[in-house]
């Protein structure tokens, strides 16, 4: 079918422009870090702690009504769910201690710090229920994360990212060489930083599902790099005298149609989540699309370019042929 219109052999001299690529990547990474430092991340309750409560918006329950009914310190916004219904989203940390009743006032300071978040949640939900005469079923969502857990979740998220990176480093080093491992991991870090930059730029909520998105992107990034590495290794074995730049160019060109097809189908699938999956998955999916785009780019311009700098040779021992592989004419 249409794939036959894809040129049989592309000859794009990728590596000639590698410095342009590396500079662009560095600019993006520095920009991302700058964004995170200045704009910060829009941390969700998973990591920031506090509560988020969602109600369905009706004629009697509007954002303004909710705002006027609950005493200070709350952020009330509207949102749209997957089916187009309007929601009222209330986000808050801890409400004024004096609102939380005598039982709370009697606690020690340490206990207060531990329980303020949960007590605030109880208070706000109760107030809303009474003010608008709502039942439990009208509270669509009510998440509350205490300070202890939010800190832990954040730490665990970072640890997960770190451990995943290390495991992939050693896997690539084991299958290829250190040079490839460094290239693959550099591309992975490039993609992770770029994606975090997007979270900051668009102020997409950063929560546990974002960590899931980041890990997926990391997986995809390495997946993509490995496909190119595999081809580099293969071509290197066949043409031992060929200059490294040329080896990498041939490898990237030969895998180019696969790169676009797989990237394309993955983006199509994730696009379906963005459009139809509802607000919970939207942020995660937008980040994933961006991650796939820069992941594809970085496997060529970051991973391969770094391998070129560090050396493409797989091993110094005489090259043995993989069984079943015949040499090309």
């Amino acid at each position, binding site marked *: 079918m249409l794939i036959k219109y894809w040129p049989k052999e592309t000859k794009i001299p990728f590596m000639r422009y590698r410095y342009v690529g590396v500079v662009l990547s560095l600019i993006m990474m520095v920009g991302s870090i700058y964004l995170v430092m200045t704009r910060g991340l829009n941390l969700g309750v998973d990591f920031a702690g506090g509560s988020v409560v969602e109600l369905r918006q009706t004629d009697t329950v509007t954002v303004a009504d909710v705002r006027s009914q609950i005493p200070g310190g709350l952020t009330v916004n509207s949102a749209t769910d997957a089916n187009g219904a309007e929601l009222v989203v209330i986000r808050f940390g801890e409400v004024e201690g004096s609102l939380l009743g005598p039982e709370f006032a009697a606690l020690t300071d340490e206990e207060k710090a531990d329980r303020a978040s949960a007590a605030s949640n109880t208070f706000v939900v109760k107030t809303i229920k009474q003010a608008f005469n709502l039942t439990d079923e009208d509270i669509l969502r009510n998440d509350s994360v205490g300070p202890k857990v939010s800190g832990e979740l954040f730490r665990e998220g970072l640890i997960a990212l770190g451990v995943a990176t290390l495991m992939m480093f050693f896997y690539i080093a084991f299958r290829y060489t250190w040079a490839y491992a460094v290239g693959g991991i550099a591309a992975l870090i490039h993609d992770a930083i770029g994606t975090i930059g997007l979270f900051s730029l668009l102020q997409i909520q950063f929560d546990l599902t974002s960590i899931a998105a980041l890990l997926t992107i990391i997986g995809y990034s390495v*997946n993509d790099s490995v496909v190119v590495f595999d081809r580099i290794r293969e071509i290197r074995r066949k043409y031992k005298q060929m200059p490294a730049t040329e080896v990498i160019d041939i490898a990237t060109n030969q895998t180019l149609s696969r790169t676009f097809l797989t990237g394309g189908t993955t983006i199509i699938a994730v696009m379906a989540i963005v459009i139809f999956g509802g607000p919970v998955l939207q942020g995660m999916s937008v980040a994933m699309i961006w991650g796939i785009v820069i992941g594809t780019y970085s496997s060529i311009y970051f991973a391969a370019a770094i391998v070129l700098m560090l050396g493409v040779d797989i091993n110094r021992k005489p090259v043995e042929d993989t069984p079943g592989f015949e040499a090309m004419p």
Partner: protein
Amino acid sequence: MLQFPPWKVLLVLVVLIWGIVMALPNVMNMSNAPGFLPKQSVNLGLDLRGGVYLEMEIPPAEVISSRLSVFARDVRSAFARTSDREPIYFQPELRGRTMLIKLSRPDADGNFPVEEALRRLDRINGPIEGGLAGGKTFEMTRAGQDGILVSVSAASESAMLADALSKTMTIVRRRVDPDGVAEISLTPSGNNRIVLEAPGEPDPERLKTLLSRDGRMTFNLVETSPADIASAQAGIVKPGFRLLEGPETGPLLVREIPEVVGADIATASQGNDEANRPQINFRLNANGARKFYETTRNNSGKLFAIVLDDVIMSAPRINEPIPGGNVRITGSFTIEEAQDLAAIIAAGEMPAKVQFLDQRVVSSTLGEDSIESGFRAAVVGLSLVAFFMILAYGLQGMFAVLSLVANVILIFAALSLLGATLTLPGIAGIILTIGMAVDANVLVFERVREEQNNGRSIWTAVQAGYERALITILDANITTLFAAIILYSLGSGPVKGFAVTLALGIITSVFTAFVFTRMMTVFWLKTFKTKRLAV
């Protein structure tokens, strides 16, 4: 690579048919199907069914200090005067995780009997429960010339926490689900946390109230003199008594030492009084019934307070001795309150007050919406990817799409087999897998295309395509599998669901893309003797 002996074909077909059978209950009602077919659909996570997720913690400091205060009572009896030994006078001083036993009277020479005290303490200091390593529950060190510091070693602390955790789990289950019918799940997490998941429960506050009670039930005799109550309210409580309040009874002075305690209660349930108002019935065990009978016989005319967590529930007057041990609490309860209180009383006392760390509540309407939008996204995603693949690769693309469908079926079958839970991010994982699963096929097709372009015949091209793509496919998928496994071990609820479907999807996609597509291709080539694959 291209040989498919009958047994291999059979194996592939068996796997696929097994997948279809396992996945079937998810799309149709199987309740009338023959018995050997599975009827259980995939477990849905709380975010899809609605319900309450509650994570609670047993504070270690509280567990330790409550154990220390129990130990203080043992110390009191160990230091008491008996027929053959002198008493040791002391003052226990609880300091969070440690307790200082301060001896208060020196002997005739002005020395404190620390050695004797240590000897007696050693006798009542049991080994660490359940510990294989040995060692004693408490550690005693001399503190100055008149003190002994009681502390808890790390090993003993973790044994105490383990004990408190398992007790608390039992109590939580009995309180939340006294009849054992609700579909709640309780999972320990770490050494002092419990995650409670209650699908279908809309109100977290009810659960929290139910679980934040200590559940310490006592029956205390009451001192009725108004003058004593007045002076107690002014701050001077008669020794041996406590001033407690009750919504029905007002302030009352009760004896500090209870006559009957929670451990004496056998069962408790909600019932109705003569006017058909809800009340709480309970039955005492033999020991409790005897104590109750004796107390009521000896204290006719007095008030007998039923106290739960230092609040007087009711204080009926003793008119006659009550044998049999059947007791009730009347009051103005709703049925639900009476049921909850009965569950609290029957479940017994918590080793320590739990603290709620985080909660996630999703209403069932939102859950249904999520299923709907997730399903829609999956269908759209699958159709678009299918369209794209067929457009690009024609017939081979069609094979890839069939593999993709088989892949989704196998993911559901594996989810059922493992009893894993499908969450909304889990659905996203499936959709992502749909996008990425074609990668293996694309790698192969591209290889075949190259080989054909290099002038190979169709059979050698297909052979070489699959052979050469295999290593790449494995390498590339193993790295993503790493990410999924780490995600799973990080695992909190919904994200874990994402990791599960992603991991399963990777494994099943390698099977469907590499084995199933290949089989279809080989059969096609054999049947139609095609000269060139249109890839």
